[in-house]
């Protein structure tokens, strides 16, 4: 039977790829934390795809969704405007005073990942003092940089690609990368569990994963 439309709540970083995987569904993209909160408040979502695993786990614990599975991974990068007014060449330049750095709020997955990176590099203190705004999701961070209002921002490598013309990417050294795992689960109150399951399968399927890779996401299991 032609399965009905389902509603997918997905992390902002999945904005471009998910429709390519399945164009028929309804998507709401945003900060994973916001989406989780909305689901807690009774949002009629069928599937929840989060930019981390903690949020889905919390929902699972509350019995609000099925046991989450990891469906992809991602990496953090620093983006600077093409003009690069602050002449940022490496992450270490972010300590320079006067740099306008935007990051995502601590509740947002990418926000906490950012903190981890800085932890790993022992830059927390000197860099965080340059933060001028904590945005509500990763896309806002990207936007402020792309608009040239901010000098730099931490985003997922996948997001950086979407506006490649407007920003320059600065890699985060592998040893400093946090474990960025995306978890997906079927919302318990979903009126259409079968289609929801079907969607999850679709994402985990070869085709689905291929699309993910094409958009710069990393394989769901790190190969040694």
């Amino acid at each position, binding site marked *: 039977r032609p399965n009905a439309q389902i509603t997918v709540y997905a992390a902002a970083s999945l904005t471009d790829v998910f429709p390519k995987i399945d164009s028929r569904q*309804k998507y709401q993209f945003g900060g994973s934390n916001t989406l989780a909160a909305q689901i807690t*408040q009774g949002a*009629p979502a069928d599937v929840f795809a989060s930019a981390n695993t903690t949020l889905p786990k919390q929902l699972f614990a509350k019995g609000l969704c099925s046991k989450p599975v990891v469906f992809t991974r991602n990496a953090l990068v620093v983006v600077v405007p093409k003009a690069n007014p602050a002449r940022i060449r490496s992450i270490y330049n972010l300590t320079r005073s006067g740099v306008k750095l935007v990051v995502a709020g601590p509740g947002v997955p990418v926000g906490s990942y950012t903190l981890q990176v800085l932890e790993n590099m022992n830059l927390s203190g000197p860099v965080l003092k340059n933060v001028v705004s904590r945005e509500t999701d990763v896309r806002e961070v990207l936007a402020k940089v*792309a608009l040239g209002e901010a000098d730099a921002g931490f985003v997922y490598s996948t997001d950086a690609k979407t506006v490649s013309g407007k920003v320059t990417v600065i890699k985060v050294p592998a040893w400093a990368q946090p474990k960025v795992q995306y978890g997906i689960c079927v919302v318990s109150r979903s009126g259409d569990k079968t289609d929801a399951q079907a969607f999850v399968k679709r994402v985990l399927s070869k085709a689905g994963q291929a699309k993910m890779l094409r958009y710069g996401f990393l394989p769901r299991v790190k190969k040694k």
Partner: protein
Amino acid sequence: MTRAFLAGLITAVAIVTLAFLALPIVAIFAHTTPAHLFDQLSNPVVRDAFVVSLKTSLIAQALIVLFGTPTAFLLATRRFPGQAVAVTLVELPLVLPPAVAGIGLLAAFGRLGLLGSTFDALGITLPFTQTAVTIAVAYVASPLYIRQAIAVFEATDPNLTAASRTLGAGPARTFFRVVLPLARGGLVAGLALSFARGLGEFGATIMFAGSLQRVTQTLPLAIYAEFDRNFDATLAMSGFLVLVSVVLLLGLRIGLTWQRSPSKRSLYLFGPSASG
């Protein structure tokens, strides 16, 4: 001469103020071309958002008129204990942070809200549905219409309604033949304001209805969502909304002046009004 100076100063201040208010609008149009602006109407996101906005706004405004008018009339013409409270209640959404309004709506109609269980029992879910958008819009925009309506009804000459009564017309006839025709201009003006405000609703909607394309994503939400992906689209949509607002406001201006006396009175602060 100090007098001319004073006049000059005031004019200067006014010009600065108006410039400040105009600049952002100008900037938006500086960044987008009319052509580009109308291209956007073919952009599916914009089109969907436009449809959602229009649909929810129209329903919301209909509700506002239907429920707001009698309420306003009562508040304007009757004295009762706790009236001040009632009027405050009516105006509250106007000054309430939209985000707070959204929280309030969640706390009231959300799954965990006061009526949550009731609605669950009835199998109704409000939050994050299009109904939620309509509710949010109605809640936030209603004061602009109701306040205006109260003002207009209060301004109706009681002698005219009294006359209508002594001429054998009952309450209903008096209301529809005398009160309403005289109030029309003001009511339309109020509705225009409330419509524009509803069209721009953001905070309450995103809190209570989320932002789901084709379902709950209104123009302002789309703007916010597109903001990061494609700034041009955002500017175009913004420009579009500005145009809508301007049209509504000018309509309102006309509606109002059609009400008010034509000749503007001079306060004679700076010399007499040139005659004729």
